[in-house]
């Protein structure tokens, strides 16, 4: 029975990684937003399960934050932004889906290898959970690199944050203060990014961030 409890924790952490892969694969914007919401929901379940496992009630708060902010509020707001920017039907990749997925596989393998190597004395499941979290972080970074659209880069950024939460809850004993401040900084970042999206759009008539590469500052 005890084994099953740990297996479920492990499975939930693995599912977060799986959804990260699905986000890499999905190249339509509104479906990507739904997947991000799913990512956050599974993260919330995983954190709640860890709270139950470690008997740490403050982790339930973390789970609630993940559920309400990241699974409901942010995706809904992003959906509205995407519809208002009229880009809900398009997405541009810098690299194709196939190479991106291959890169993602490589990063996941790297994350697992690294984590299993540098933590030889803790138990295998905990190490693998840390490996999943690190892989999730790296897949989020990859998502930011592989997409040119500002909204999908925001999603990549948020999924990096989900990965760090996953790592922190698995590792036992993240202070509540850190968790709350991270959640609020994410919220602030979201608001700032939201404002910037409209500013970028206003100035360049697009949210394709390649337009920024040619920008040489205000003339005159």
């Amino acid at each position, binding site marked *: 029975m005890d084994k099953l409890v740990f297996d479920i924790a*492990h499975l939930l952490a*693995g599912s977060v990684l799986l959804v990260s*892969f699905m986000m890499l694969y999905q190249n339509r914007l509104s479906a990507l937003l739904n997947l991000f919401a799913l990512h956050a929901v599974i993260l919330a379940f995983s954190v709640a399960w860890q709270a139950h496992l470690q008997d740490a009630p403050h982790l339930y708060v973390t789970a609630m934050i993940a559920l309400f902010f990241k699974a409901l509020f942010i995706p809904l707001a992003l959906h509205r932004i995407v519809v208002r920017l009229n880009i809900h039907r398009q997405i541009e990749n810098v690299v194709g*889906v196939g190479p991106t997925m*291959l890169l993602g*596989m490589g990063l*996941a393998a790297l994350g697992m290898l690294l984590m*299993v190597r540098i933590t030889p004395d803790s138990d*295998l499941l905990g190490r693998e959970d840390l490996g999943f979290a690190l892989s999730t972080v790296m897949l989020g970074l990859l998502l930011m690199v592989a997409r040119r659209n500002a909204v999908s880069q925001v999603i990549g950024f948020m999924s990096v944050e989900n990965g760090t939460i996953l790592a922190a809850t698995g590792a036992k004993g993240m202070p509540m203060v850190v968790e709350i401040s991270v959640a609020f900084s994410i919220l602030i970042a979201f608001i700032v990014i939201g404002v910037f999206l409209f500013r970028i759009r206003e100035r360049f008539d697009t949210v394709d961030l390649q337009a920024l590469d040619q920008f040489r500052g205000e003339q005159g």
Partner: protein
Amino acid sequence: MIIDLLTQGVEMILVLAIAPLLTGFVRKVKARLLRRQGPSVWQPYRDLLRLARKEVVLAENASWLFRTAPYLIFAATWVAAALVPTFASGLMFSWAADLIAIIALLGSARFFLALAGMEVGTAFGGIGSSREAMIASVAEPAILMMVFTVALIAGSSQLSTVARFMATAEAGLRVSTGLALFALIIVALAENARIPVDNPATHLELTMVHEAMVLEYSGRHLAVIELAASLKLLLYLSLIGCIFIPWGMAASGGGITGYLIGSLLYLAKLGVLGLGLALFESAIAKMRVFRVPQFVGAALMLGLLGTLLLFF
């Protein structure tokens, strides 16, 4: 010995008998989900009977291959279906070959189907065959990776052993098992020409794959091919059932009651999986042909990841 042979015979007859029913059931559920009445679940049997009575119309340039291919395809699929534990594990034939052999049998069936598609030299058949080969070139490595994952977990590629191991508590809930399940589902959708990859309900669409290859067939040849296609769907659902939900399967020599309970549970599993398939197909739109390799490629990645995770 005689009893073993008899049980195996019953199993082979059973899969053959209920394969069209499964197809009919999935069609019925899909029709009901679209708020149509839909044909009765027995319609595939009537179709098969009607086709079997009809005359075969052969193209003038059709060779012996075109005439023998349907039987070869059917035989390979039926043998593969006999090797999968359905209501009981450890039946007589299941020790003769393992999961890799089943995949090889299905692969040879596909090879003959693709050949038959190109045989008469129509444009549609050629397109269908080339697309089938394109999908298969990704789907086969994907299912092999899935097999490796499962075999590494269970310590054997023998399906009866795998089914028994998966039913024990030792198998547990593993991430690799979940990844293998996803990979197998994606491959099953692609191999059975189900909706995101191919549309099983149409004959006249430029993007069709399976129907394009069998367009030239008629009469009893078509009946045999349709039956083989139903059998293949049943086989994949049984495969998912026996690897990932093996509970309640009778052991060999389990006695009549054990077999009966196993059969009822097997039918229930098929019903649930068929329902899931119909729901999924109704909820999703068909993909562009050029996105299919990405979709099936995702299964390959999942299988690869599942295998990779087992090495830590």
